[in-house]
């Protein structure tokens, strides 16, 4: 029965029903807030369960798209409503539907002002995220890709910190520049191929000269999203100003849009340009790893520190993708999912203490472990996952990326691996200053221990990070066939080009 449903569309748009319910809620402000939270949690939770149904029905051994849906959109124009998932979009959809209910739970108490609007923004955000990962039409992809920004702008701009306007503005400037260039490239591609269908575009052989320019246009947009050095400076500000849940989604899912874009567009459609630009991207990524790690060392704001660490970790992702090796790409995918879970948890770690002391200054803490021993344990675990401890998900991605990097160039692997040392420095130092020591400030001693809601957010994240670290096959198997398919296409395309030269 259910198999005849357009399941992917249902998963994508289900949160909109929640938006509808939210609009219908009546009552005084307090009851609206309470009911909004519940509705948002239930709807996003149910969406997650449905996406699990997708996962169960997903056959990792099929190369190509599954749960495909296609309908004419603008007849005769080559633009259609086209959804479908493969091994690289499936994990991201799960990541998005998994993190959304957790983020809603994370904002349970901290958002009291206009809670209904906040929840609407989150559900719309979820639609945009899932829709983007499920789109197989370039125009749809573009709409979702840019649409994601709207609820995020609102979340930062309305519920953010004191300098939220500056942060949102900065984010806007960077994104605008990238998006304009990407849109131009999309128009050019539509002109050349006559369709916006992603599989058709991937099958089309663009000449190397055209690829060169198209690659750069897409790169401008994706690099901002990742973010790659030197277009990363919006991220620390956006994170610092965003509410906790906004940071969780921003780091957890939104940063992955760039990496996903590279895998969905750049590699399959512009393989020659990808190979041509790989050294350039390695250099930017290595700078990202080393530079932002050093910058992270110098931060006195917890959120900023973790934001900079995100840039460093995403540097591994871009290295992995452009090694154009199977391990590199699988490692990059794995690193993205792992980082999604770990950074969301780390931002929540900051949020938990921020809710209590209302400051993110590292020096305001110290000795938190006395007041909050369980918090210290969760934070410790996520900190270790962030530095890539084997047995956590953080290790698998980094290891595979390095395997690929060593194959591509020894120096890239060597320089990237310095991130292992630097990462340990700033994370352990942060942890030491916040959690260890003797609590001398009275307000730190009086911090309340984790409540049940907070534990409920930490526990699933911890279980997944541990599970993916011990049995990564759960994830690697899902994407293995798609990754080797991408690889095979890139390789065959490159070899054809070599023959033609």
């Amino acid at each position, binding site marked *: 029965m259910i198999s005849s449903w357009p399941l992917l569309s249902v998963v994508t748009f289900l949160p909109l029903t929640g938006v509808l319910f939210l609009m219908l809620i009546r009552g005084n402000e307090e009851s609206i807030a309470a009911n909004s939270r519940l509705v948002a949690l239930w709807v996003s939770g149910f969406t997650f369960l449905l996406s699990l149904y997708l996962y169960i029905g997903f056959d990792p051994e099929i190369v190509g798209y599954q749960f495909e849906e296609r309908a004419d959109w603008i007849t005769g124009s080559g633009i259609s409503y086209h959804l479908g998932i493969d091994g690289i979009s499936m994990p991201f959809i799960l990541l998005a539907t998994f993190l959304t209910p957790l983020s809603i739970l994370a904002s349970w108490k901290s958002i009291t002002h206009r809670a209904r609007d906040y929840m609407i923004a989150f559900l719309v955000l979820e639609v945009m995220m899932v829709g983007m990962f499920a789109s197989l039409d370039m125009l749809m992809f573009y709409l979702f890709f840019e649409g994601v920004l709207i609820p995020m702008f609102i979340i930062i701009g309305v519920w953010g910190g004191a300098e939220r306007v500056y942060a949102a503005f900065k984010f806007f400037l960077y994104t605008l520049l990238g998006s304009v260039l990407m849109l131009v490239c999309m128009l050019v591609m539509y002109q050349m191929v006559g369709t916006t269908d992603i599989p058709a575009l991937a099958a089309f052989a663009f000449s190397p000269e055209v690829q060169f320019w198209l690659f750069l246009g897409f790169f401008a947009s994706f690099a901002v999203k990742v973010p790659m050095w030197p277009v990363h400076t919006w991220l620390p500000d956006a994170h610092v100003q965003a509410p906790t849940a906004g940071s969780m989604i921003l780091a957890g899912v939104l940063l992955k849009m760039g990496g996903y874009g590279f895998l969905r567009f750049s590699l399959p459609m512009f393989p020659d340009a990808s190979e041509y630009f790989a050294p350039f991207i390695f250099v930017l990524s290595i700078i990202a790893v080393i530079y932002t790690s050093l910058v992270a060392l110098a931060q006195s704001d917890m959120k900023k520190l973790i934001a900079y660490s995100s840039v460093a970790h995403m540097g591994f992702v871009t290295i992995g993708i452009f090694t154009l090796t199977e391990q590199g790409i699988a490692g990059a995918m794995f690193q993205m999912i792992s980082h999604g879970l770990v950074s969301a948890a780390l931002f929540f770690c900051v949020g938990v203490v921020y809710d209590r002391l209302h400051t993110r200054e590292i020096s305001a803490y110290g000795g938190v472990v006395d007041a909050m021993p369980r918090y210290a344990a969760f934070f410790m675990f996520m900190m270790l996952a962030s530095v890539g401890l084997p047995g956590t998900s953080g290790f698998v991605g980094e290891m595979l990326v390095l395997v690929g990097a060593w194959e591509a160039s020894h120096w890239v692997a060597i320089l990237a691996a310095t991130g*292992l040392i630097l990462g340990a420095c700033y994370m352990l130092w942060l942890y030491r200053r916040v959690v260890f020591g003797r609590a001398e400030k009275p307000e730190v001693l009086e911090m309340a221990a984790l409540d049940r809601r907070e534990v409920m957010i930490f526990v699933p994240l911890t279980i997944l990070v541990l599970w993916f670290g011990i049995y990564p096959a759960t994830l690697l198997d899902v994407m293995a066939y798609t990754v080797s398919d991408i690889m095979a296409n890139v390789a065959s395309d490159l070899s054809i080009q070599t023959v033609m030269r």
Partner: protein
Amino acid sequence: MFYQAIVFLPLLGAIAAGLFSLRQQNSAAIAVSVSGVVISFILSLFAFAHVAMGGNTEIVSVARWINSGTFEANWQLRFDTLTAVMLIVVTGVSSCVHIYSVGYMHHDKAIARFMAYLSLFTFAMLMLVTADNLVQLFFGWEGVGVASYLLIGFWYHKESAHTAAMKAFVVNRVGDFGFVLGILAIFTLTGSVSFDAIFADTASYQNAVITFSGISLPALEVVSILLFIGAMGKSAQLGLHTWLPDAMEGPTPVSALIHAATMVTAGVFLVCRMSPIIEYAPIALDVITIVGASTAIFAATVGMTQFDIKRVIAYSTCSQLGYMFFAAGVSAYPAAMFHLTTHAFFKALLFLGAGSVIHALSDEQDLRNMGGIWRKVPVTYTMMWVGSLALAGFPFFAGFYSKDMILEAAYGAHTGVGMIAFWLGCAAALLTAFYSWRLLILAFHGQPRASAEVMSHVHESPNVMTLPLIPLALGAIFAGWAGYELFVGHDMAAFWGDSIFILPSHTAMEAAHHVPLWVKLLPIVLATSGVLGAYIAYVKMPHLPAKIASACGGFYDFLFNKWYFDELYDRIFVRPAVLFGGWLWRRGDKGTIDYFGPDGLSALVGRLSSRLVHIQTGYVYHYAFAMMIGVVVLLSWYFSGFGR
């Protein structure tokens, strides 16, 4: 299930103890963690009989792990002789330390958490020694690192404790950097990370090269040196040793288990495990020998001057690890493993004895505040004598067999570096005896220097702390004599089987049995002189040490300050990194990217008119950043051309 149980029982113990610690059920936590490790030890004895004595190798698959394309690393346990020896050492010492801790940590409210960490460490160490591939070995390697981090920083209220914990982790990460690159290099070279596949035909890689920017280096040399860098970090060899003395901030049972008997020997184990590769890397072998010998003498010189009882023993550990490495460096892996085993017994004994002294003196660690207590703590005193006799290598104690074997092998190697190692090792042997008896005399003899209040509380430790010392003492006395024929004597080849590989042309092990008599006698003579020296300096003429110290002035300060390694690293790495990070943030992110990027765009209209003025800002960092962009372009070109 039998083999899995050895490894996973301590993990179950750790998890259960961790859960009990949440509910403050201390006795339950103690019971599960102790029984997990003790059962694991008993099973290890059977495994040893079957694997090492029976000459079998067992491979036990557990689960898939990381599989991507041709890269395959699975959870798989390997039991061969090398593993079996380590199993006995790890579970044996761990059992003693678990039991000892019940007494030692008795007053600590967090004892349940402590026991959980100890068991977690034991599990990670067992994963390390039973690994069937390099990636799983790295899992154990990092796992013991984390357990060590948690245990050094166990008393997290102390600034010095969590500083030391972090230092240990970070310094080890520097070594891990080499280890990871070594794994990558091996994978590209052999297409696998599993030991059987890597070692299948190492001779065929002799001419393989790894190319860095057009320079071709012999692949096996590169691999061996990279892995040895990892070993240097974990085993605290010269250069990466700075964390080990600081690690003494952890509770004393931790020092005994992790920082003396087991974890720090992981590097030696790794080198022995990789012998089929390292044997074909003559330069790497020489490097290992030199680093090992230098560490042996360096740590001994520092050990002479320290006043913290645990730090003296820590430097001694560092020094003894140096012996093990230079043994491996002259291809005498069995001698290295032999010393590893005997050392585990007597060094754990010394540490636990020191813990007992510290306990008796109300947490006093400074030798200058001890003395005159030997009648009050007779058992501890005896144990410390046994440990010191074994460490100094007096005849028929454990160290006598293993340390002499190493020195004889170094002499028997008949190579230049072998002779350097031999002489440095002999000098270190003299110093070892000296600082051991210096410690004994200062701690137990002479006039009491502690306050009357402390002295009135001095008492022998309870049975739960003295009983575990007995098996260790027995090991310190008999392990050398009992293990000699198996480890390094006639039965050596049959005992080690395939687990250690030595090229037929590397004859140090064989030659060690045929060295001149003076080579055999010299270490004993030196050890005796060391003891006499300590006796003269600290009993007969107690004013002598201070006189010598002031006479040597600068040199004494140099030794006392541990050759200024910490200060040096702080100057050239730690502080510059933080300062540079701050500079990048202010001048790079804020001063340049934002300045010219978003902030600049926002003021673009206003600035257009005076654009020229702004370009010539005169700020050095703007030019510096322009240069960095140039570097990006240059490096991109470079990688595209030569990177492969």
